[in-house]
């Protein structure tokens, strides 16, 4: 597994995500450059952690890769789709089918049961109800919540909620799982179990991008992308060596 930054700029069929010289500026009174030319690719099946201090641009990076936002300049391709070139409608479809989000605060809908929360992405994809339920139950069983399917989020612990959120992220069988500080709202032990779930997903061949500011969380990945001041500082490969960019 090679971490490639410049080489990955050319489209590679094995890459789920390709970023080529991506820039993002915000106009808030003055111009703020959140990303100043980032190139990065995520090969299929890779597990990448993004680390950086707050304000480093890692959230912007996540929003771009998650097709929630479009770059000011440069290319962002996710699962073969050019994010900046497609309509809002197509980006929504991309988020629904190719990207699975896991948030720090879980972001489950309180009114829906675990099984309904997990099935939510499939609602917008037009999947029939019975099929959604079966798929959601299957995934809940996989994350160890087979006996909690009809509970509402408020009846679940933090760790359980995050596992429901992970099941939701996987329900559409996405090309990429995006996790934003997934252990930020749970205690260390629960966080460790949540990370175990990611390990299992990785082992099963899922492509994962995880944003964190905690070193021990990032070390679960097979490489760490360090971001600072809107630029890639270095990419650290964890199967031994470390490579500066």
């Amino acid at each position, binding site marked *: 597994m090679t971490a490639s930054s410049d080489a990955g700029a050319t489209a590679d069929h094995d890459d789920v995500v390709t970023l080529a010289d991506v820039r993002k500026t915000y106009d808030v009174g003055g111009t703020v450059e959140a990303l100043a030319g980032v190139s990065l690719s995520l090969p299929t099946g890779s597990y990448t952690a993004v680390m950086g201090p707050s304000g480093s641009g890692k959230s912007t990076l996540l*929003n771009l890769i*998650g097709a*929630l*936002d479009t770059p000011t300049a440069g290319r962002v391709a996710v699962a073969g789709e050019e994010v900046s070139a497609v309509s*809002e*409608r197509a980006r*929504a*479809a991309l*988020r*629904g*089918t190719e990207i699975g*989000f896991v*948030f720090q605060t879980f*972001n*489950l*809908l309180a*009114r*829906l049961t675990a099984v309904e929360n997990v099935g*939510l*992405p499939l*609602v*917008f*994809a*037009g999947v029939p*109800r019975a099929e959604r339920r079966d798929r959601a139950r299957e995934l809940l069983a996989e994350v160890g919540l087979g006996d909690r399917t009809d509970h509402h989020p408020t009846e679940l612990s933090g760790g359980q909620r995050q596992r429901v959120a992970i099941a*939701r992220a996987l329900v*559409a069988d996405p090309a990429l799982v995006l996790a934003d500080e997934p252990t930020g709202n749970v205690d260390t032990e629960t966080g460790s179990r949540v990370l175990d779930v990611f390990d299992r997903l990785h082992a099963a061949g899922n492509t994962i991008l995880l944003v964190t500011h905690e070193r021990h969380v990032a070390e679960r990945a097979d490489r760490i992308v360090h971001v600072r001041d809107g630029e890639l500082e270095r990419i650290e490969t964890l199967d031994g060596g470390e490579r500066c960019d």
Partner: protein
Amino acid sequence: MRLIESVRIAWRSIRSHRLRSALTVLGLVIGIASVVVFATFGASIEAEIVGDIEGSSASNVYVFATPADDEDGGFDQVVQPAFTERDVEALASLPGVTAAIPRGTVDANSLTHGEDTVARQRVTATTPATFDEDRIVAGRGFRSGSAEVVLNERAARTFAENVTVGDRLTLSLSGNQTRDLRVVGIVNGTAGGLPVSDFAEGSRVYVPVDPFYRTVVESPSVGVRQRAYPQVTVVTDPTGIEATRTAVATYLDEESDARLLVPAGTEPTARTSGDFAARISSVIDRVTRFVTGVAVIGLVVGAIGIANIMLVSVTERTREIGVMKAVGARNRDVLVLFLVESGLLGAVGAVLALPVGIGVGYAATRYAEVGFTLAPGWMATAVGVGVAVGVLAGLYPAWRAARVDPIDALRYE
């Protein structure tokens, strides 16, 4: 996203705020129900009155003088005696006419039954043809040229002791003359009266024209003095009523004595009970529309309630909208979701308002002692307006929801 899913999710959302949803719906229920109540009540009154008029007098053409500028089928009657005996005979001999019943009043002072005397300013003078078999309650109609009298039921009850057939009455006329009369019949209406007298039935005393009616004028066509009446009722077959009306109108315009005798600025007119019903209908209609329009204000208030609650809902659920967008909801899905929710509130309001409105409308008609008539057009409108109001009120909030930026929304606390 399928519509059924939108409905399901919207319904969940409505149910999760039971009290809030119930109050919002209540506002709309009051609005729609008041529209239904007033419309129903108006329709019932109209049906009652029009039914009375048409049911009792579908075969009558009413002939009297009206102001010449009265173009809209009015019944502003001029009481000048203008229709002579000759006119009455001519009208009676028109094709299809069964009878022409003249009607006039005789000035009086009082009426005495036994020891009991009541003041009475006038009695009605008419001919025996005015008595319809179906409307005679007891006895028979009077005979021409006799000292007989017929009372309607209300007049029969005016005295301390109810008047019955065979009783004697003493009529005191103006000029201190008195006449002894024998009561030969009690009726609950006559063919010759204007339709209005049927539902606002006063006390009526009928005497024969001969010998009691003394108002005479010189007939311009025959040149002799003869009796003249302010009103004549032409009885015909209900199916031929329009033809008869035309014939009557032609006669009045071209040959009648009345056209020369009516006061300046007036003209003899032929009207049917249909005209009368239409006239009453249009008046009641106008009142109903006005009152219903006032009730529509309630509907608008209900709509504002929905808009308000939907705006609150959008703000409250900003994060939820962000989540839905992150997991693949398109702007359109979010828009539809909120529109369906507000539309559902409107529909629920409308569905609940219908029975409430009909129920209260029914109670109102019972209270007013009129028959109950539904106004299906208004009811359909009320329901349609309810749903439309819901959707319209939800339009802006839904648009706001659809435009929520998922990045901001996910960060929203």
